[in-house]
C-alpha cells in the first residue's frame, strides 16, 4: 500500500490568530528548493518562487456510504484530482483550514475517496497553537480542542511572549488532550520546514513510534465534553477475535466521539505485530513485520476523544486478553 508516486499532503490547522498565515508565508517565500501547492481559503497573496496557490471553498460534504460521521471535503477531492493532472510533479501539497474548521473531514477524505487515496497520501496534521491564548481558547471553543486532538505536530507559537512556567502549563494541557503529537516551541513559526512537511505521520509504521506510557493522567476535574486521551498497555497477548469484536463495535457505536485512535497489537499465535490507526469510524490496519528481538511484545493502544470515561475502554481492552 506504500506507493512512492503518491504526493504527500500536509493539513495545516490552527485557531484564529495563532500564526498560520505566518507559516504559510514562510512556506511560500523560503528558498526550500521544492515545489509545493498550497490550498488556501481567501488568501490574499500570490505564491512567490515556484509555488502554486489554489483557492478553495472548504465545502464539507456528507458521503452516501452509510457512515454517520463520514463527512469529506468535496472541494479537496476536486482540487487534488486537478493537481494530479499537472505535467510537473509536486513535492508536497499543503491544505490550510480556516480557524474554526474541524480537521476530521479533511483527514477522512484520504480514507474515503479512492482516487485521492491512489494519488496522494495524508502526510501529517500540523496545528499552530498560540501559547498566549491556547488555554482560554480550549475552554471556550471545542474547535481549538479538536485541532489539538487531531494533530501529529503542534507548533506552540509565540513562546517569547509567555513566562517559562506558563509554557510548562500549556504544554501539560496539550499533553492531556494529545499524548502523541510532537510539540515544537516556536517564535513566528520558525521551525525548520522539514519538521512540518514530509513527516509520513499517517504511515502505519509510524504508529510503532508511539510511547504513550507517560500519560497516566487523572480525570477528576474534567467535563464530559472535554477532549482527553486514554492509553492501555498489556504484556498478555490479545485474542484476535475478541479484539476485532470489541474494537469494531466500539468504532461503530462511539466513533463520533473517538477523534483519533492508534495502536500496536500483540495477538496470541501471531508472529507479526499488528498496527492500526483511525480517524473517527474510519480505520487503517495492517501486520507490520515481526517483533524486534529482545524487546517486550506488549500491546499499546491510545484513544483521543470526548466522553472516553463512559466507554468502558479499560474493561473492554482487558477482556481482549487471551485466556
Amino acid at each position, binding site marked *: 500500500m506504500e506507493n512512492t508516486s503518491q504526493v504527500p499532503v500536509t493539513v495545516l490547522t490552527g485557531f484564529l490568530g495563532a500564526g498560520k498565515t505566518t507559516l504559510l508565508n514562510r512556506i511560500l517565500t523560503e528558498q526550500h528548493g521544492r515545489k509545493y501547492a498550497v490550498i488556501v481559503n481567501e488568501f490574499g497573496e500570490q505564491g512567490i518562487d515556484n509555488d502554486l496557490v489554489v*483557492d478553495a471553498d472548504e465545502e464539507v460534504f*456528507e*458521503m452516501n456510504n452509510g457512515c454517520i460521521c463520514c463527512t469529506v471535503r468535496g472541494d479537496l477531492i476536486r482540487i487534488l484530482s*486537478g493537481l494530479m493532472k499537472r505535467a510537473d510533479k509536486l513535492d508536497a501539497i499543503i491544505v490550510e483550514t480556516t480557524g474554526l474548521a474541524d480537521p476530521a473531514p479533511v483527514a477522512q477524505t484520504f480514507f474515503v475517496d*479512492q482516487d485521492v487515496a491512489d494519488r496522494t497520501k495524508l502526510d501529517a496534521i500540523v496545528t499552530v497553537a498560540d501559547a498566549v491564548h491556547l488555554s482560554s481558547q480550549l475552554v471556550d471553543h471545542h474547535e481549538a480542542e479538536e485541532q489539538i486532538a487531531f494533530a501529529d505536530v503542534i507548533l506552540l507559537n509565540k513562546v517569547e511572549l509567555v513566562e517559562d512556567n506558563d509554557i510548562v502549563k500549556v504544554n501539560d494541557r496539550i499533553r492531556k488532550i494529545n499524548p502523541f503529537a510532537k510539540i515544537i516551541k516556536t517564535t513566528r513559526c520558525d521551525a525548520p520546514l522539514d519538521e512540518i512537511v514530509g513527516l509520513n505521520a499517517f504511515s502505519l509504521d509510524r504508529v510503532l513510534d508511539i510511547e504513550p506510557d507517560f500519560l497516566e493522567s487523572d480525570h477528576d476535574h474534567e467535563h464530559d465534553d472535554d477532549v482527553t486521551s486514554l492509553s492501555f498497555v498489556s504484556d498478555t497477548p490479545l485474542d484476535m477475535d475478541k479484539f476485532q469484536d470489541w474494537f469494531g463495535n466500539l468504532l461503530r457505536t462511539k466513533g463520533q466521539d473517538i477523534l483519533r485512535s492508534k495502536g500496536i497489537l500483540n495477538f496470541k499465535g501471531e508472529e507479526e505485530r499488528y498496527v492500526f490507526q483511525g480517524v473517527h469510524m474510519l480505520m487503517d490496519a495492517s501486520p507490520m513485520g515481526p517483533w524486534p528481538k529482545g524487546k517486550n511484545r506488549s500491546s499499546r493502544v491510545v484513544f483521543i476523544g470526548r466522553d472516553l470515561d463512559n466507554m468502558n475502554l479499560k474493561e473492554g481492552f482487558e477482556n481482549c486478553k487471551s485466556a
Partner: protein
Amino acid sequence: MNADLEKLQETNKTELERRGSIFNIGAPATEAVTTRDQIAVGFGDGTVRFFQSGSDPKTVKAHKGVVLSMTNYEDHVLTGGDDGRFLKISSDGNIEEIFNFGSKWVDCVASHKDTKVCSSGKTVYIWTKNKDKPQTLEHQSTVAGLAFDNKGKRLAVSRYGGVTVWKLNNNKWTASNYTWKGSHGTVTFSPDTKYIVTAMQENQIHGWRINDKADLAMRGYPSKIKSFTWVGDTPYLVTSGSSDAVCWPFDGKEGPMGRKPIVVANGGKELATFVKALNGEKAVFTGFTDGSVLLAEIDESKKPIMIRSSTGAEVSTIAISSDNSQILIGDMKGSILLSSLWADN
C-alpha cells in the same frame, strides 16, 4: 535481445497502432474535442494541441497550469484552466482571453452555437453574442458539471446535492432543482432531452426524468464513473467505472428503471476509465486503466476488438474526427495514438 523485445512489441501491436502515429507529449491528456477537421487535445502542461492525420500536431501554449475543461465552439475550442483563464483558441494558435478569474480555477466550460459558458467556484458565467458582460447564475456549492440540451434552451449545472436545470425564456434564466444527496460531477442530457444523468463522487450515477423528477439510481460500480457516452438509437448510456462498459437502456417510458444494464468490452482485471460512442453505430470504444482500448458492439454475444494495446497508463480521453475517419486516444502519461479507423483510409 533488444531486437527481440522490439519484435515482440511489434507483433503485440494492434492493427490501428501499426498504421497510426504515436506522439509522446509527456503531460497527461485531460480533454479532447473534435473541431471541423481536427482533434484538439488539452494537456496537463497547459498546452492545447491540434491533431490532424498526416502532419505533426500544432501546439498552442494556452494555460499556465492544467487544461481542466474544453469544448468546441464554432471552429474554435473553449478552454478553462487552473490559471483562472477562460480562453477561446483557434487551431492557428490565436488565443482570445474571454475572462481571467485570477486564483480561482475555471472548472467547467460549455457552449451552444454562439453562447459561451464557464464556471468558476459556485458561479456560472454566460456570454451571449454581442454582449461584453456575462450573465451570472449562482449556486449553493461549487459547480462540477455543465451541459446544454440539444436546443440550447436548458443548461444543467451539477453540484453538491443535485442538479440545477436553468431554462431560458425571453432572455431570462429560471431555475429548477433536481435533488439527490451526495456530490454530483459530470452531467449529460439524454439525446431526446427527457433525462439528465450525473456521475457522482460515490461509485454510482444518478438520473432524473425531467418532467416529473423521478429518480434513477444506477449503482453497483466498483469505482467512480469518470466518463459516459450516449450510444445508438435506443439510446444506451454507456459508462466507465467497472471492468466492462456498462450500458443502460434509455428507451420506453421508464428508461433503465427496474432493468439490468448490458455489459460489453470486458477488460479482465482492468477497470474502464473512458468510453466514447462510434458515431452512427451501436458500438462503443472503451479505454481501461492499463491504457488498452476495446471496440465493442452493444451486444453481449459479440466479441470486442482490441484497438490499442496496454501502455501502462490509464486512458483519459478518446475522440473521433467529425468525418468518422480518425480516432485519437490519450492517456495519463501523455501518450497519444492517432490512427485511421478504416483500413483503406
